[in-house]
């Protein structure tokens, strides 16, 4: 028997031209809790998907329990004793816990048999789950326990948990960690993928840090201080390219938007924002940062008037320019023309006839003022390049000079020129007197243009200095 539960050696993974992982290695000792840390896009999830057989690596080797293996599917990984608890659960809401657990099985199904074994397993492991409860009646914490039981039901000895605490309340997180400690103490092994440094250091035996697809740090958790880990996670990014677009030194104007003591839930009913207070002033750009699951997307939608709070007061103006992250889903209709997409912007308030010739002229104006390269206003949005689609969305939202602009990852996937154009537009908008809130997953895009920086961590909003180290620490919850 080997001492190693799971070994990934020199894993390479490319997506097109992007090198997601370069020679990344990870050794998880049997009977330990191993934390894998890193920023958004560092390659954590990719590495775990490869370990679980969901993706094939371009190079490198995988060994489970010391035996080299070639995984071709997650069924392979499960057969070899791995189990994965995904950040977005993979349960069928209308089925019971036992039925969900039985889903991966083979041959004849005796649901009473399964339920009895789940009951037994639940008592044995201390993961309280009613096998007969419908999943959609369970809270998020209980759903996560069903996911863990599902893995244990297939005799998993090594659990991979992807951001397990992102959806949990602090108390549920404590319970999960207490359970994980017992699990590893009884001989199980767990890999914990997380953004949160402190919980990793507090709970884990070993830590590995990934940055830009490489393993940059591995040690025993007890031997390492938070400061060292923060540096390992964020890196010394003097090499990051400086943006050509910078904030204007303008005076802060009147109060434009205000959230006071606001809480909000996402579509699944999970509380994502707790007691947040934010004030936005004319002429000021607020840079907003936060990892996936921190509640940052809900905060943006609260500011944009697209989400109703569960508590607190929201005062936002009526004229809001909103640039959502997924433009093809939330901002435009691909098969409609540019003009029709301009008309879409205030479709709710229109009455009577549509004056298409007037709208065509308006659209041509937007195209000209915001450098949208399209054959004509009656070209379909789907025919445009991604950069021009985004310039079109930004132009449409900013053209009537809204008093508040909310932009969510506005330069994601754009080339350098389009990126600069969009950032310049946001800076100009603030210069013209708008209050601007910009979220980006890449904080290096925010630092040059932001007057203030807010970081959302675990549903709470913190103001930090406009400084890379300060933002990077706050992102992972370090003091």
């Amino acid at each position, binding site marked *: 028997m080997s001492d190693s539960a799971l070994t990934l050696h020199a894993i390479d993974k490319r997506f097109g031209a992007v090198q997601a992982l370069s020679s990344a290695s990870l050794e998880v000792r049997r009977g330990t809790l191993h934390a894998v840390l890193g920023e958004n896009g560092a390659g954590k999830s990719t590495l775990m998907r490869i370990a679980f057989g969901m993706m094939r690596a371009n190079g490198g080797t995988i060994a489970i329990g010391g035996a080299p293996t070639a995984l071709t599917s997650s069924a392979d990984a499960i057969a070899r004793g791995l189990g994965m608890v995904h950040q977005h659960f993979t349960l069928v809401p209308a089925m019971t816990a036992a039925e969900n657990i039985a889903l991966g099985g083979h041959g004849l199904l005796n649901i009473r048999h399964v339920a009895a074994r789940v009951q037994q397993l639940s008592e044995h492991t201390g993961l309280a789950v009613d096998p007969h409860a419908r999943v959609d009646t369970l809270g998020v914490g209980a759903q996560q326990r069903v996911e863990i039981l599902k893995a244990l039901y297939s005799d998993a000895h090594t659990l991979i948990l992807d951001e397990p605490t992102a959806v949990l309340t602090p108390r549920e997180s404590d319970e999960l960690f207490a359970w994980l400690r017992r699990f590893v103490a009884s001989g199980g092994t767990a890999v914990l993928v997380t953004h949160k440094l402190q919980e990793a250091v507090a709970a884990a035996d070993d830590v590995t840090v990934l940055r830009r697809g490489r393993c940059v740090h591995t040690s025993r958790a007890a031997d390492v201080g938070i400061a060292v880990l923060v540096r390992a996670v964020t890196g010394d990014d003097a090499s990051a390219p400086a943006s050509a677009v910078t904030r204007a030194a303008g005076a802060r104007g009147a109060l434009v938007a205000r959230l006071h003591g606001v809480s909000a839930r996402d579509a699944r009913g999970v509380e994502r924002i707790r007691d947040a207070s934010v004030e936005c002033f004319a002429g000021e750009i607020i840079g907003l940062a936060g990892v996936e699951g921190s509640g940052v997307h809900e905060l943006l939608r609260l500011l944009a008037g*697209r989400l109703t709070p569960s508590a607190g007061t929201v005062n936002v103006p009526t004229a809001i320019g*909103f640039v*959502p992250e997924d433009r093809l*889903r*939330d*901002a*435009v*209709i691909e*098969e*409609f023309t540019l003009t*029709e997409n301009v*008309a*879409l*912007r*205030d*479709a*709710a*308030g*229109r*009455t*009577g*006839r*549509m004056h*298409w010739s007037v709208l065509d002229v308006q659209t041509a104006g937007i195209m000209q003022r915001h450098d949208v390269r399209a054959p004509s206003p009656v070209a379909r949005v789907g025919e445009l390049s991604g950069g021009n689609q985004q310039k079109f969305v930004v132009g449409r939202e900013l053209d009537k000079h809204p008093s508040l602009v909310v932009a969510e990852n506005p330069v994601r996937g754009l080339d350098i020129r389009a990126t600069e154009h969009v950032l310049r537009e946001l800076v100009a908008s603030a210069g013209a007197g708008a209050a601007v809130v910009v979220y980006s997953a890449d904080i290096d895009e925010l630092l040059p243009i932001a007057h203030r920086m807010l970081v959302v961590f675990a549903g709470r909003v913190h103001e930090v200095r406009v400084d890379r180290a300060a933002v990077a620490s706050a992102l992972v919850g370090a003091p």
Partner: protein
Amino acid sequence: MAATVAVIVAAVLGILAVGGYDTPRALAALWNGAFGSTYAVLSATLVRATPLLFVGLSVGLAFRAGVLNIGAEGQLLAGAATAVAVGLWVGGLPPLVALPMVLGAGAIAGAIWAGIAGFLKVRFGVLEVISTLMLNFVATSVVSWLIRGPLQEPTRIYPQTLELAPSVHMPTLIAGHRLHLGFPLAIVLAVTVWWFLTHTAAGFRVRVVGASVRAASSAGGVNTARTAALVFLASGALAGLGGASEATGVTFALYEGISPGYGYSAIAVALLARLHPLAIILTALLFGALEAGAAAMQRDANVPSVLAAVVEALIVLGVLAFNHARTRGQRA
């Protein structure tokens, strides 16, 4: 369109050959039944096309909003039954008063019948594909009950109502032919629906909701549930009006089988027209000709008229497969 015609020809020839029928004679009957004479055009093809145009518009409008109303059959029956009930009651009034009342009642009944499915969707999240289909069966059964119960003719021998008084008959357009006012009315409605969708703000909202619910609410602030609910009502009203037009223009009474499945053919009519209201005029005429020809083929060449239904089904499958191939091609 050329592809459609090719599908129709191939399907008809294939079925005739497999069935061992006298192909030349059957084809001649098909053609003559649809276009062979003034009578065929004015009393068969256009008369058959009229209800198809109403229900085709009903389905087309709903699908444009992303509302999958496949209950035009039930809404048509609700409209026809109500129109006959009201027609029997107001038959003594002058035509200019009585006929609009009868047609209006039919439209309202269709809207209510569709509104049931709309309410179930908005209130309980019931999929309209299921609820509207189920309501078709309910409507068929309600008609069966009406014509053996409260609306049965006084002698209680035949399972049908009394015939409507001439004051509530749809006027015919050409003496000696069955073509009635319902046909031009349906054409006017097709143009109106087209104009509504392309030139009004409310119509634009319908298109936006049909194209992307997410973009409609996020970028446009549109109340998508309200838009869908209103489309349910309008779609039902169009089908109900089609039923009223059929009852007052062709059957003059209510009985079982008043619709040979117009509400189902409507789905083919709308899909083949790519949900474009003006194109629906053409596809309704095409299907009207096909059904008129199939009826003649049964009379003259003993070929079962279900042939028309088979051809319609093949067209729907062809359109869906073609659209699928086209969208896949775009993604590749």
